[in-house]
């Protein structure tokens, strides 16, 4: 039984995969943005040691970091379904588990996942700015907001950008796990096409190629941003 690589079907699957890039971006860029907002909030609460809340969030971060994304998504998916079906009838809501969008569940789950890791990124980046910079900003009479925007964030950014890049790559790859809770993204879309002819290898290779391209693209963008954002760090360049 000789295997024949069907390059025409492979190209067809590549096009299918490309068409689903927007879904992958929805599942990675949106969680990155939401995660950045939530993560910054978590980082600030922990850096300023807000009593009670800081400890709670620290524990939550440690817990969620130890749980595989697959389990986070599955549990969220199951809990939402069971929860809606149990609660909706009690309050006479015309809502059932069938109305819950798989994609929405995945976006929420990936956002929580991202927030956990990004809170660590924000913490690392803020802590990388020496305390003397805060003091100097105060000493010339800036208030906290002015200090943050003009002095601290511009210096924290070069530290944060590569970390943000690797987190975005993690989210792009992580979005494939959403296929396991029935979200139609690149993996499921290409598989669906292969269901009739069993040419799964072509389907998976096409999907892989597109993921790879996306990840390399992110790496390139990060490299360009890094070079642009940290001009001041390089001694001797006038």
């Amino acid at each position: 039984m000789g295997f024949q690589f069907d390059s025409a079907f492979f190209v067809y699957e590549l096009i299918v995969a490309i068409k689903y890039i927007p879904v992958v971006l929805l599942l990675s860029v949106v969680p990155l943005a939401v995660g950045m907002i939530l993560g910054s909030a978590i980082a600030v609460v922990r850096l300023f040691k807000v009593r009670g809340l800081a400890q709670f969030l620290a524990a939550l971060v440690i817990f969620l970091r130890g749980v595989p994304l697959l389990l986070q998504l599955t549990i969220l998916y199951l809990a939402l379904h069971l929860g809606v079906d149990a609660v909706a009838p009690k309050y006479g809501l015309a809502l059932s588990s069938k109305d819950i969008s798989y994609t929405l569940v995945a976006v929420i789950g990936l956002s929580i996942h991202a927030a956990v890791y990004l809170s660590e990124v924000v913490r690392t980046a803020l802590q990388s700015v020496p305390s003397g910079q805060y003091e100097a900003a105060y000493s010339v009479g800036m208030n906290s907001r002015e200090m943050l925007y003009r002095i601290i964030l511009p210096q924290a950014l070069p530290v944060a950008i590569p970390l943000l890049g690797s987190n975005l790559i993690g989210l792009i790859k992580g979005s494939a796990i959403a296929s396991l809770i029935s979200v139609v993204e690149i993996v499921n879309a290409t598989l669906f096409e292969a269901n009739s002819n069993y040419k799964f290898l072509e389907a998976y290779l096409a999907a892989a190629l597109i993921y790879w391209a996306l990840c390399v693209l992110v790496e390139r963008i990060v490299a360009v941003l890094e070079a642009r954002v940290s001009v001041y760090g390089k001694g001797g360049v006038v």
Partner: protein
Amino acid sequence: MENIFSFSLFIDAFPKLLSRLDITLYIVLIALIFGLLIGSYIALVRLYKMPVLSQLATVYVSFIRGIPILVLLYIVYIGLPVLVEGLFHVNINRWDTLIFVLIAYIVNSSAFLSEIIRSAVAGVEVGQTEAAYAVGMTRWQAFRRIVFPQAIKIALPALGNNIVSLLKDTSLAYTLGVIDIIGVIKAISSNTYRSLEAYAAAAIIFFVLSLLLEQTFKRLEKRLGTKHVVSGQE
């Protein structure tokens, strides 16, 4: 509440899941050992810039790091028999699924670990090697006695993170039909028609394992005196 989350089912799930813990740990261990061996070789190929091999290694690492482990699992599962058949005319379709899973995780971790090893070795100053040569050490002695111990210190935090990721990534092995911690949930849920409790139990197990791994590495780092670059210039 009981029809959302049954506490007794949650508790009952633990022994069933833990009975399959060995499979999960086995995958982690094998992927780690072979990943380190192959990863070191890839790192050396790239560090010494061996012609052709170095370029191939670069593409390999970039590709493997750029695709989801889920996709890699299937590519190995479907693609490897085709490749072996084509090259050696040997049919390996009947191999145990676990072998394909192991190969996929080895491939995956070899790429990630090679990057860690490469940047750790590159992180040791050239002066260290030169000083070792200056006191009359051979290339191998210089590597083993001077460079390697320093590189280990640099690599340790990333290595720890990577093993935790590897552990969590094994949760996808069930997609090929391996009955590990996650795979057994499928079996449970087909009896009870519910799985939330079992998934929650699995989450706890993975969390505890990750925590144990993290703590072990923290202790190792302390013992080896790995410096964490955090903040401050003073």
